């Protein structure tokens, strides 16, 4: 009896360890492979590991005239502009949707969801065509606008939730003390909603950093962001450059995953979409 329990425990333990190892391999295998490519100097078939390791490709990527530095900077610049445009639009909209008595509020919220709910390629190719008539294709502004259309739902929905989570009584207290509407907003409402708004800014920043389809149709070949560089170097078989660009794109994404709980407080999360 004891023997049987022991052996069934052992079987359970082994299955558990095996399943977890398999999952770990499935998740970290591809990532490890990329890390190896990022530091491989020489690696060809039939060798299972790189023959030489080093950072000469990193030097090539990061030297001032290297196109990766330029791609990284244009990615960051475009992402920052996208955050400014999206939040500039989302903060007033979020405040109004959270506080104002809005007719068709539900319908308006749904409208912001649509760019995410329809296949992006089909819309972006037409955006590119419309932009062509307006001389916006191949420009940073054109790319920023396309990125902002993708980020807007996160910006508006999270900003709305952040404003909805602000205690209305605090605003009323400020108004009672004689603060005007604008003063109340700047000194009370906005600071209280700030963590949520920061979270939406980070979301929009990451969406823009990672965006490929819109940049492919609207920006290429003049605007080269990091995903575009990754794509072209991968298609040319230059796996070192592609892996180094992947790694640079991964850092903010994974960093955000580790810190998401700090920025997105439970009370804001509970109000998203409500």
């Amino acid at each position, binding site marked *: 009896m004891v023997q049987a329990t022991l052996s069934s425990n052992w079987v359970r333990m082994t299955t558990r360890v095996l399943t977890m190892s398999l999952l770990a391999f499935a*998740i970290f295998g591809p990532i490890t492979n990329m890390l190896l490519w990022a530091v491989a100097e020489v690696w060809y078939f039939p060798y299972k590991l790189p023959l030489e390791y080093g950072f000469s490709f990193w030097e090539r990527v990061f030297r001032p005239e290297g196109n990766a530095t330029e791609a990284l900077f244009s990615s960051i610049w475009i992402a920052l502009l996208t955050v400014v445009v999206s939040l500039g639009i989302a903060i007033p909209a979020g405040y109004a949707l959270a506080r*104002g008595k809005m007719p068709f509020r539900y319908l308006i919220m749904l409208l912001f969801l649509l760019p995410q709910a329809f296949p992006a390629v089909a819309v972006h190719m037409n955006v590119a065509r419309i932009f062509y008539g307006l001389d916006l294709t191949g420009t940073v502004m054109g790319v920023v606008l396309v990125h902002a259309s993708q980020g807007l739902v996160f910006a508006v929905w999270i900003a709305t939730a952040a404003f909805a989570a602000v205690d209305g009584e605090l605003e009323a207290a400020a108004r009672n003390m004689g603060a005007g509407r604008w003063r109340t907003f700047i000194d009370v409402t906005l600071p209280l909603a700030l963590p949520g708004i920061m979270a939406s800014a980070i979301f929009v920043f990451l969406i823009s950093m990672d965006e490929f389809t819109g940049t492919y149709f609207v920006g290429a070949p003049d605007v080269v962001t990091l995903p575009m560089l990754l794509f072209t170097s991968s298609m040319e078989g230059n796996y070192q450059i592609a892996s180094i660009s992947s790694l640079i794109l991964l850092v903010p994404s994974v960093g955000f995953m580790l810190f998401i709980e700090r920025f997105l407080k439970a009370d804001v999360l509970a109000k998203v979409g409500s």
Partner: protein
Amino acid sequence: MGAILLVAPALLMIGFLFVYPFGYSVVSAFTDNGEGSWHIANFTKAVEFYSKDILFTIVIVSLSTAIIGILAVAIAGYLTLGENKTAVAILKWLYRWPLFIPFIVSAQLMRTFLAKNGMMNNILTSSGIIEPLAAQSYLDWRGIVITFVWKQTPFVALLVAGAMASIDRTTIDAGRIFGASRLRILIELVVPQIATTLMVGLILSYVVMLSVLSVPLMINAQSPTMLTVDMAWRINSYGDYGVANALGIMSYLFTGVVAWFYLRQSLKDKGA
């Protein structure tokens, strides 16, 4: 009135960057590139040229959605019902990694990992699981499915695990007392209670996979391939917006079918 003014810039932006191009795509699909009379010639041409790809797209996206659903329920189920605290903690730490990895990076990871001489085959041959000669490239439909599942499962699992954590534990405990196995508790007691969340997660994943261009482009751009690649090809090589938009309308329709199914189901649930 003031509230409307505050929302107006956001509405204008959506109108200009989504509603207008969306309408444009419909008009362009049913006319000759936005001019002339209405007809369905673009659609007959699209079906004639790309019927294989249309089928391929539906199969790939449906299969991926199904696998994502099963894996997400399994992961979330173990997180909710698992008895070994260490295993639950490890799983919780492990499963989320691909969540914020962009599609284009996932595609690049898999492009090197699943290749004939890639790391997966190397490890399988080194450990004696397969013969070196049996090593084959997975950079075809399987590669696309693997990439989609790898990238999207954590997202659905996260949603589902959240929903499972908030359900009433008494039903689970009741099941336990009556001696039901954990698998049975998961399938018969837990899953029905989180079905709506699971559906929302799966529908979002389905639409996302339907609109990703980088993954099929980087993993399998040969024929048959996915409609997104065909659309890009139609435009970049021929400037043919008519057929590209006809394909686009089809991808709207695939989304529409799923959305309609979801709405009907949720209305039924509310009515019950």
